[in-house]
């Protein structure tokens, strides 16, 4: 068996027993790091389960034909869904990624494993406090908790505990980088994936500091010792709320590179470009959260335009660069290894039955085509007038955070189960179709949710028939059909999400152990990238690359131009739509 990686022997000999060497990747795995990764991944899955059940209940309520929950319960479950998914699931998983990108990927021990357990305990305590407050009805404020809506002080305190724990993990991550550098566990610069994780961790620090600036005053306000301006709260909250999604983006892109490497040996076309793009995320993304305040009364138009356009578009540029380099890396990786036919032979010969690979592709495509295009468009100052707080907003972010980030996390899990948990993936056939179900369902869900929003259907709303309102109000008749299709897509995605939880929990707790003997062609329960890792390439393989005018990745060039055409069409169609509404200013 070939290994992907060749590593220099570290100067400081590794203590026997504390490490094991991975026979697939050649990575040295620090056992305390492995245990922390496992714990954080399990916590993430529990949060995903709570968030997922909430998702189904919300879906069956917004589907007006079913309208399952009572109003109080609906808003409560919606609060739990937002917090469990966007905060607990994603951040617990990102903690696992930070441990992986610093320890194993650099062949290093992690710094202060005991601190890791303290952090984990703090985060778990905070999460339990928050869930407790929500489910006992003491925090019916939705995840944004815009003051002067008031939750129990323990709710804010729980968030603070969770955030402090996450902040400490970031510092632990930076300390591990120092340890690895000092102990010379790697040569030269950090690998790109670790570099991406550094970007995510730096954004996380910025984000969590904003979190402190939001929640500490809010906690003090909730116990009556301080006043907080509602508009200032909204600004600070979104510096937390949106920047935290940028942690996701940076982590997700790092995982794209990782899944590309695991599954098809995707190469890094140019380190400079990919790294610069990560730096752009760090520099420009925090200001971009101003796009949540585009139709707020507290800010001038110039403030809005500068923060969203000048700053945000530099981050958009970064995403567009990754949107090229990731598929180009896959294309070139495939071509180097002999998939040289035509423009798209590399696509045909890709391992579509490897859930790690299909997750990668679906994550890139749905994130880019649906999440990215809608996000930039609706984050435009004037276009936001016809979008703000309608269903177009959740329609957008379910395409980024769910079919993008969560899908990438799921894809990575199919590799973590054998590599970290040392188990074969259970229900292999189901695992192979899970990404298609999940991303396909979410695609339908997001698109039809966005369409309903285009008719002005509000988000976060229990009853769009307005049965108890002082006047009659009916939406366009198409809305019922759109919401019905949306619900169908959501249910398909829920099946995909349920399968993911079933597969991971079953594999980890009842799965068959993974041994070297299992790595035979056609074996079930193992992704192709583990059975037969992509062979290392040599300079001679570069003879396989095309020499045409469209560069070494002509297929990708075609794909990104299609993307740009879709982007421009959607963008200008929205300006046209805006021009139909009343004159306002």
């Amino acid at each position: 068996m070939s290994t992907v990686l060749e590593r220099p022997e570290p100067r400081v000999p590794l203590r026997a027993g504390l490490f094991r060497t991975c026979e697939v990747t050649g990575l040295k795995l620090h056992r305390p790091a492995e245990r922390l990764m496992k714990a954080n991944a399990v916590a993430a899955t529990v949060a995903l389960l709570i968030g997922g059940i909430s998702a189904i209940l919300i879906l069956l309520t917004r589907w007006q034909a079913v309208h399952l929950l009572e109003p109080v319960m609906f808003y409560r479950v919606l609060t739990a869904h937002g917090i469990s998914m966007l905060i607990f699931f994603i951040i617990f998983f990102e903690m696992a990624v930070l441990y992986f990108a610093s320890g194993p990927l650099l062949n290093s021990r992690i710094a202060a494993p005991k601190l890791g357990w303290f952090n984990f305990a703090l985060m778990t305590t905070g999460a339990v406090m928050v869930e407790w407050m929500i489910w006992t009805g003491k925090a019916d404020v939705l995840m944004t908790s815009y003051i002067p809506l008031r939750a129990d002080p323990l709710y804010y305190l729980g968030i603070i505990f969770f955030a402090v724990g996450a902040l400490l993990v970031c510092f632990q991550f930076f300390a591990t980088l120092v340890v690895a550098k000092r102990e010379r566990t790697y040569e030269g610069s950090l690998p790109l994936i670790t570099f991406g994780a550094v970007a995510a961790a730096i954004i996380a620090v910025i984000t969590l500091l904003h979190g402190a600036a939001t929640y500490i005053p809010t906690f003090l306000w909730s116990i009556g010792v301080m006043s907080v301006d509602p508009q200032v709260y909204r600004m600070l909250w979104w510096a937390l709320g949106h920047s935290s999604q940028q942690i996701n983006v940076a982590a997700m892109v790092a995982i794209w590179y990782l899944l590309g490497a695991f599954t098809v040996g995707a190469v890094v076309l140019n380190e400079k470009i990919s790294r610069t793009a990560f730096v752009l995320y760090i520099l420009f993304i925090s200001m971009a959260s101003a796009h949540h305040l585009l139709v707020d009364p507290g800010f001038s138009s110039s403030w809005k335009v500068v923060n969203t356009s000048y700053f945000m578009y530099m981050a958009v540029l970064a995403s567009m660069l990754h949107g090229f380099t990731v598929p180009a890396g896959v294309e070139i990786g495939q071509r180097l290894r002999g998939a040289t036919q035509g423009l798209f032979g590399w696509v045909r010969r890709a391992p579509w039955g490897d859930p790690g690979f299909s997750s990668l592709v679906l994550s890139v495509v749905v994130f880019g085509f649906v999440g990215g295009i809608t996000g930039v468009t609706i984050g435009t100052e004037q276009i936001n007038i016809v979008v703000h707080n309608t269903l177009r907003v959740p329609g957008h972010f379910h395409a980024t955070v769910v079919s993008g980030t969560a899908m990438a996390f799921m894809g990575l899990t199919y590799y973590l189960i054998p590599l970290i948990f040392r188990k074969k993936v259970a229900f292999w056939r189901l695992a192979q179709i899970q990404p298609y179900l999940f991303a396909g369902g979410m695609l339908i869900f997001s698109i039809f949710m966005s369409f309903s929003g285009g008719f002005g259907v509000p988000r976060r709303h229990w009853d769009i028939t307005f049965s108890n309102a002082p006047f009659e109000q009916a939406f366009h008749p198409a809305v019922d059909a759109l919401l019905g299709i949306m619900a169908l897509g959501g249910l398909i995605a829920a099946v995909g999400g349920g399968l993911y939880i079933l597969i991971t929990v079953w594999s980890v707790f009842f799965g068959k152990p993974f041994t070297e003997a299992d790595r035979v062609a056609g074996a079930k329960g193992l992704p192709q990238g583990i059975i037969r890792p992509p062979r290392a390439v040599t300079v001679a393989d570069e003879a396989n690359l095309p020499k045409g005018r469209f560069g070494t990745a002509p297929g990708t060039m075609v794909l990104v131009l299609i993307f740009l055409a879709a982007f421009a069409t959607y963008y200008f169609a929205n300006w046209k739509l805006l021009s139909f509404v009343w004159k306002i200013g």
Partner: protein
Amino acid sequence: MRPDEENMEREPMTTGMQSPKGRWWVPAHRSEKVWFAIAFAWCMVLFAMMPLWHWKGGQNPSGIRRKVEPAAFEARVNQFVADYQVGELNGYPVVEPPPGSDIYMIGRMWSWFPILKLRKGAEYTLHLSSKDVNHGFSLYPVNINFQIVPGYDYGLKIVPTEAGDFGVICNEFCGVGHHMMLGKVLVTNEDGTLPGETSASAEVQ
């Protein structure tokens, strides 16, 4: 080999899991340069559109923005209702201000107050604010949406371009009664009639 590729270090290409060997700050491939240029140019288009729309477009969220005490704003709304009330609908006053004037609507748990009766083609300055928590002003089916924040007066110049009966939905969560919060804006034709209404019946009202 093109010149830019010859400059590359002659090491095999690696994945993102490995430390790059040798010097990696090297010129990009031509395809990457081309895409970078296209993407950057597109971002400049995105950037240009917003100032351009402020200059030439008819829909902008600029507004006249001031801080205001919720109680003071509510008093102003009540004065406005006292000045221009012309009728009542389901217990809510219907207010018909003269074209060109400052008009007011307040969001509070859980209603929009009062009902506005406007004239098509006339310009008004619509002041929006909240008495208590955040609300979301969403005019249906025109689909105009603004965030309403307590303590802030958002004064927007508006010109209704169609006559009819419009709903004001609250689209920011404001408590358990959020979904019952529904207001109304009526827009008359230039002659003061509502669609489906003759000028004679308007006189009678």
